[in-house]
C-alpha cells in the first residue's frame, strides 16, 4: 500500500515535470502582462507583495502580515502574532509559559507554522510553542487564514487550513561592508536577563550568512490577585481578595541559530540550522493548596534542533522549481520531584521525536492567464518515550498538491487540491494497548480541495472582493492515537469545511497616506472532532471522533499609514482589528454543553496598534481586548474566564554613534512597558498572566 502510493506520487511528479517541460518549450517566449514574480528572492514577504502586484494596489488573496520593523521592536515573536485578527494566542503566562495559536477557532492543531516555508511539525501533540523563536532572526510574520497565494510552496502549505509563516531575512549590508555585528541585552521584570549576539557576514558576493545566539534566564516570579465575591442575602458582599506569587515558573534557555543564503545563476538557496535548549519549571494551574506544602517542583527540559534548506531555481519564465528538506529532533523531559513536592507523583518521562522532510515544488506558467504549481512532500515522524506500554509510533505522510491560478485581469481564481496519505506503524507488544482496542496499523487519507477567487472591479481603483471554499483536515496526533490507555488508534482525520467572503477597500488619498479597510466573514464547520471523553469509568478516558463545531466569524480591520520620512516628518500608522467568533459546539444534542461556546474563544475580541516614528524615536502602542470566554464548552460559571484588556507600550531610540549618517555604529535603546493597566487576567484557566511588567533593552551594532 505504502509502496503503491509512493509510486503513484512519484509518477504524478514525473508526469507534472513532463508537462512542465513541454509547457516551457512551447511557451518559453510568452510575454507577460501579469507578472508572476520570477525574480529570485528568499523573502516570503517580498515575494508575496510581488505576487499581489497582479492588480496594482489591491491584494489578491487576503492574508495578513505584521511589518518586520514592528516584529523587531516587540519583545518577542508571540507578542507580534497577538496582533492578528481572527486568532487566539493561548498563553500560559510568563516567560516560560507555552504559547500556541488557534486560528479562526479551528483548534491549534490546525494551525501550521512554517519557517522560511518549511513546516515545523510536532507529531506528538500538533502544537508548536511560539515562545521558542526569536525576533533576532524571525522578522517576517504572515498569517494565512485559508489559502496561500504564493508560488513554489510545499504541498503541506497548500493543504494547510490556516498557517503562520515565519521568515528570516537575508542579511543586507551597507555599501562596502561585509560584516555586521549586533549585541543585544534585555532585562527587566521577573528577573529576566537575556543577552544575544548576531553576526552577519558576506563570504563572497552572493553568499552571506548569519550566526545568532541568545540566552534567556528568568525567575518567572510575579504577583497576581485572586478574588471572588458573593452577594449576601442582606445585600452586602463577602469574599476574598488575595495576592499570591507565581512560583516555579523559572526558565533558562539557550538558543543558537545559523543561516546561509546564496544565489545561483537563476535562483537562490538558503539553509537554516537551529538549536534550542531549555530547562524550566512548570508552575501548574493555580488551585487551592495547603499553605504549608512546599512549592511545586515539576520541571521540563527541551532540546530542539533542526536543519533545513531550500533551493529555488527560476529556470525560465515558464518553469521554476524548488526543493527543500528538513531534519529535526526534539527531546522533551518532564519530571516531577516528589521529594521536594510531596503533592506530586514520581514521573520522569522522556520523549524523543525525530522528523525528516523532503519537498519538491514546480511552477509552470501555462499561459499568460494560467499557472500551475505542483508540489509533493514526504514527511517522516517517529516518537519514542520511556513510558510503560509505549508503542513507538512511526508515521510516513505523503502530500501531493496541484494549485492552479487563473489570472483573468480583474478576476483571480485559485483552484487547488491536495491529497494526503499517512501510514502509521507502531509496535504491538504484549503491553501495547494503544486505545485498548485496535491493533491494526493505520492508513489515513485526506483530500483537501480549495476554490477561491478575488475580484477587483475594473471600474474601481480601491475595491476588491474575495471568497473561498475549502476542505481541510487534521491528522490525529500521536498522543490522540497512542497515548497509553487514553489514545484510540481507530481515530480518523478531523475534517473542516471553510467558507468565507471578504471585501477590501484600499485608498491612498495622498502619495504618502494610505487607508485600508477589510472585512471578512466566514463559516467553519468542523466534523469528527477528536475529543477525550470518559468511558464506563471516570478513570478511563478515551479519544473519539465525536465532536462537531460550527464557527461563524467576522473580522474587520482598519488601518491607516502615513509614510513620513521619519526624520523631520514623523511616520505613523495605526491598525484597528475586531474579531467576532460564534464558535458553537454541536457535538451531542443530549448534552448540556450542546450549542455552548467552544473553549477559549471569546465572542468579541480586538486589538489596536499604533506606531509613531520620528527622528530615531519609535513608539508602538498595542492594546488588546478580549470578551468573556470559557475553558470548556460547558458554559458554566466554574469555567468562565473574565473579559480582559491589556496594553503594551514599546519605545525605541536609535542613536548613530559615528555621524553623518554613514556610520555603522548604532545604539538602540528600548523600553517595553507591558500590561500598562496592571490588569489581572487569565488567558488559560488557572494560569494567571503577569500584571504590569517592563523590560529594557540595549543593542549595539557595528
Amino acid at each position, binding site marked *: 500500500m505504502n509502496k503503491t502510493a509512493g509510486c503513484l506520487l512519484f509518477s504524478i511528479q514525473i508526469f507534472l515535470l513532463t508537462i512542465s517541460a513541454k509547457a516551457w518549450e512551447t511557451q518559453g517566449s510568452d510575454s507577460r502582462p501579469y507578472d508572476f514574480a520570477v525574480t529570485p528572492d528568499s523573502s516570503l514577504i517580498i515575494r508575496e507583495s510581488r505576487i499581489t502586484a497582479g492588480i496594482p494596489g489591491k491584494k489578491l488573496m487576503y492574508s495578513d502580515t505584521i511589518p518586520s520593523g514592528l516584529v523587531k521592536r516587540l519583545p518577542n515573536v508571540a507578542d507580534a502574532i497577538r496582533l492578528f485578527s481572527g486568532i487566539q494566542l493561548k498563553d500560559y503566562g510568563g516567560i516560560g509559559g507555552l504559547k500556541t495559536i488557534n486560528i479562526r477557532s479551528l483548534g491549534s492543531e490546525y494551525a501550521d507554522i512554517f519557517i522560511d516555508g518549511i513546516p515545523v511539525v510536532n507529531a506528538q501533540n500538533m502544537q508548536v510553542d511560539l515562545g521558542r523563536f526569536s525576533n533576532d532572526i524571525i522578522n517576517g510574520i504572515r498569517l494565512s487564514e485559508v489559502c496561500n497565494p504564493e508560488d513554489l510552496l510545499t504541498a503541506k502549505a497548500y493543504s494547510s487550513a490556516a498557517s503562520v509563516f515565519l521568515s528570516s531575512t537575508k542579511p543586507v549590508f551597507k555599501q562596502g561592508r561585509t560584516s555586521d555585528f549586533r549585541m543585544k541585552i534585555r532585562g527587566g521584570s521577573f528577573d529576566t536577563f537575556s543577552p544575544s549576539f548576531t553576526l552577519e557576514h558576506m563570504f563572497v558576493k552572493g553568499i552571506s550568512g548569519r550566526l545568532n545566539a541568545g540566552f534567556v534566564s528568568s525567575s518567572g516570579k510575579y504577583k497576581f490577585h485572586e478574588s471572588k465575591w458573593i452577594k449576601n442575602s442582606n445585600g452586602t458582599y463577602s469574599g*476574598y481578595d488575595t495576592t499570591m506569587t507565581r512560583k516555579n515558573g523559572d526558565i533558562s534557555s539557550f538558543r543558537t541559530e545559523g543561516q546561509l543564503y546564496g544565489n545561483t545563476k537563476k535562483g537562490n538557496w538558503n539553509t537554516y540550522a537551529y538549536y534550542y535548549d531549555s530547562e524550566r519549571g512548570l508552575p501548574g494551574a493555580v488551585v487551592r493548596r495547603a499553605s504549608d506544602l512546599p512549592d511545586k517542583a515539576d520541571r521540563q527540559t527541551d532540546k530542539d534542533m533542526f536543519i533545513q534548506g531550500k533551493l529555488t531555481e527560476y529556470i525560465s519564465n515558464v518553469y521554476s522549481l524548488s526543493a527543500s528538506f528538513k531534519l529535526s529532533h526534539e527531546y522533551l523531559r518532564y519530571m516531577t520531584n516528589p521529594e521536594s513536592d510531596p503533592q506530586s507523583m*514520581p514521573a520522569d518521562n522522556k520523549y524523543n521525536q525525530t522528523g525528516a522532510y523532503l519537498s519538491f515544488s514546480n511552477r509552470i506558467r501555462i499561459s499568460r492567464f494560467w499557472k500551475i504549481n505542483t508540489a509533493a512532500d514526504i514527511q517522516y515522524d517517529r516518537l519514542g518515550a520511556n513510558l510503560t506500554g509505549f508503542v513507538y509510533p512511526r508515521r510516513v505522510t505523503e502530500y501531493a498538491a496541484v494549485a492552479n491560478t487563473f489570472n483573468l485581469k480583474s478576476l483571480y481564481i485559485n483552484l487547488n487540491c491536495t491529497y494526503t496519505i499517512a501510514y502509521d506503524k507502531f509496535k504491538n507488544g504484549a503491553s501495547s494497548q494503544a486505545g485498548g482496542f485496535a491493533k491494526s496499523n493505520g492508513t489515513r487519507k485526506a483530500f483537501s480541495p480549495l476554490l477561491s477567487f478575488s475580484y477587483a472591479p475594473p471600474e474601481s481603483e480601491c475595491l476588491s472582493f474575495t471568497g473561498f471554499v475549502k476542505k481541510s483536515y487534521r491528522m490525529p496526533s500521536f498522543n490522540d492515537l497512542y497515548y497509553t490507555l487514553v489514545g484510540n488508534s481507530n481515530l480518523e482525520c478531523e475534517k473542516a469545511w471553510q467558507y468565507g467572503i471578504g471585501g477590501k477597500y484600499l485608498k491612498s488619498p495622498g502619495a504618502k497616506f494610505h487607508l485600508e479597510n477589510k472585512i471578512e466573514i466566514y463559516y467553519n464547520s468542523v466534523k469528527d472532532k477528536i475529543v477525550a*471523553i470518559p468511558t464506563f469509568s*471516570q478513570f478511563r478516558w478515551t479519544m473519539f471522533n465525536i465532536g462537531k463545531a460550527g464557527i461563524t466569524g467576522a473580522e474587520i480591520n482598519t488601518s491607516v499609514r502615513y509614510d513620513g520620512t521619519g526624520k523631520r516628518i514623523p511616520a505613523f500608522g495605526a491598525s484597528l482589528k475586531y474579531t467576532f467568533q460564534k464558535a458553537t459546539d454541536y457535538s451531542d444534542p443530549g448534552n448540556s454543553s450542546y450549542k455552548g461556546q467552544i473553549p477559549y474563544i471569546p465572542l468579541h475580541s480586538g486589538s489596536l496598534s499604533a506606531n509613531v516614528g520620528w527622528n530615531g524615536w519609535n513608539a508602538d502602542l498595542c492594546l488588546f481586548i478580549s470578551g468573556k470566554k470559557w475553558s470548556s464548552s460547558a458554559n*458554566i460559571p466554574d469555567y468562565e474566564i473574565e473579559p480582559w484588556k491589556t496594553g503594551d507600550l514599546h519605545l525605541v531610540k536609535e542613536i548613530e554613534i559615528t555621524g553623518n549618517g554613514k556610520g555603522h555604529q548604532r545604539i538602540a535603546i528600548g523600553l517595553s512597558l507591558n500590561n500598562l493597566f496592571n490588569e489581572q487576567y487569565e488567558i488559560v*484557566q488557572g494560569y494567571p498572566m503577569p500584571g504590569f511588567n517592563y523590560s529594557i533593552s540595549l543593542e549595539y551594532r557595528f
Partner: protein
Amino acid sequence: MKKLTLLISGTVLAILVASCDKSQVTNRISGITSEDDSLAGVNVAAGETSGPFMKLFVLNEGKMGTDNASLDFFRYSNGRYCRNTFKMMNPDISLGLGDVGNDIKVWKNTVWMTINNSGIVEVINAINEKHLASITVPSCRNIAFYGDYAYVTSYSGAVYGGNDIKGAVYKIYIGTMSVVDSVHVGYQPEGIAEYGGKLYVANGGGFHTGYDNTLTILDPEGGSETENLEIAGNLKDVYANENGDIWISALGDYYSVHSGLYHVDGTTNTLISRSKALEDVRVSCMTMNAAGVVYVIGTDDEWNWKGPRKYNLYTIQPGGDLVKTEFTSDMDAITTPYSICEDFYNGNIYIGDAGDCLNPGKIYCLNRDLELLWSTTAGVDPGHMILYSPYYGI
C-alpha cells in the same frame, strides 16, 4: 455513613432506631436551626422529615485544575437541594473548597473531606458548613475514623525507590486536628476501613509499578503494617461491616481484566473464594449502608467504549446473598454512575451521575423499587455522598 457502622454496633443502632419515636426525632431535627437555612436551594422533593437524617451531603469532585470541588446538600426538613454550600457559607476562604474532592466522611457533628489536588483535609461543622480546620495531607485520598484519630490514605509517602513511591496512611489526632504520625503502605492507597481494631487499606498502584494488588492490614495502635493480602490489581474501595465482612472493589486494568468485587473475612484476614455470581459483579461505584448491606453499580459492557452501556445494581446482604437488578427505565437517564448512597431508614437510593464529567452532574433519588422520586443538578462530578444526622454522632 460507613463511619457510623464502624462506630456503632448494629445492636446499638437497632435499639436507637427502634426506641426513637419517629415524631420525636422529626421534631428534634426540624427544631435545629442553622446559618445555612438562608440557603434556599431548589425544591426537589416534599420534605422527608420522618427520617433521622438532617442532610445528605454530596461532594462534587470538580474538574482537575479548575478549583471547582464543591459541597452540596439535600436538606430533609424542607426537601431542598442546596449547591455550592461550602463557598456560600465560607466566602472568605481563598480559592474555595479546592481542587478535586476525593472523599467525604462524618465524624460526630463534623464533616471531613479530602481535597486531593489541594493536599488538604477540610473539616467543617456539619450543622452549618462553617470551616473548622484545614489539615495538610499531601495527595490525600480517603478517610476512616478509629478511636480519637482520623486515618487518611495518601499517595504521598516518604519511601522512594527509583521512580516508585509508596503511599502512606496519615494519622490525625481529632482533638487538635493535626497530623501525628504516618506509616507507609502499598502503592497509591485508596480506600480505607476499620474492623476489629485493624485498618484495611486498598492499594491501587498505577504509577510506574503497574497496579498494586494488595490489601494492607494495619495495626493503628502499633502504627505498623501487620499483613499484606493479595486481592486483585488496581484496588479502589474498602468497606467493612460489624460481622467482619470486608468488601473490596478492584477497577481492573480497563482492557484485559474486568473490575470486580472481592470479599475478605476480617476475623481471619483471608480472601473468601467468590461464587460465580460474585465473580460477575462489575464495579463502577459502591457503598455500604449502616446495616452492612453493600450496594454496587456496574456494567457488563465495560469495554464497550462508545456505549450505550446497561448498568446493574447489585445488593449484597451481610450474609452474602447477592441480588442483581438491571437499571429500571426510570434510571435510563443515568449515563455515568459515579456514586451511590442508601438511606437505610426508608430504603431510598441516591445515585450521583457524572454525565460527561465536565458539566454539572445529577443526583437521582429512587425508592427501594428503583422508581424515581426526584432528580436534580449537582456540581461537576458528584462522586461522594454521605448522610448526616445530628443524633447519630457519638
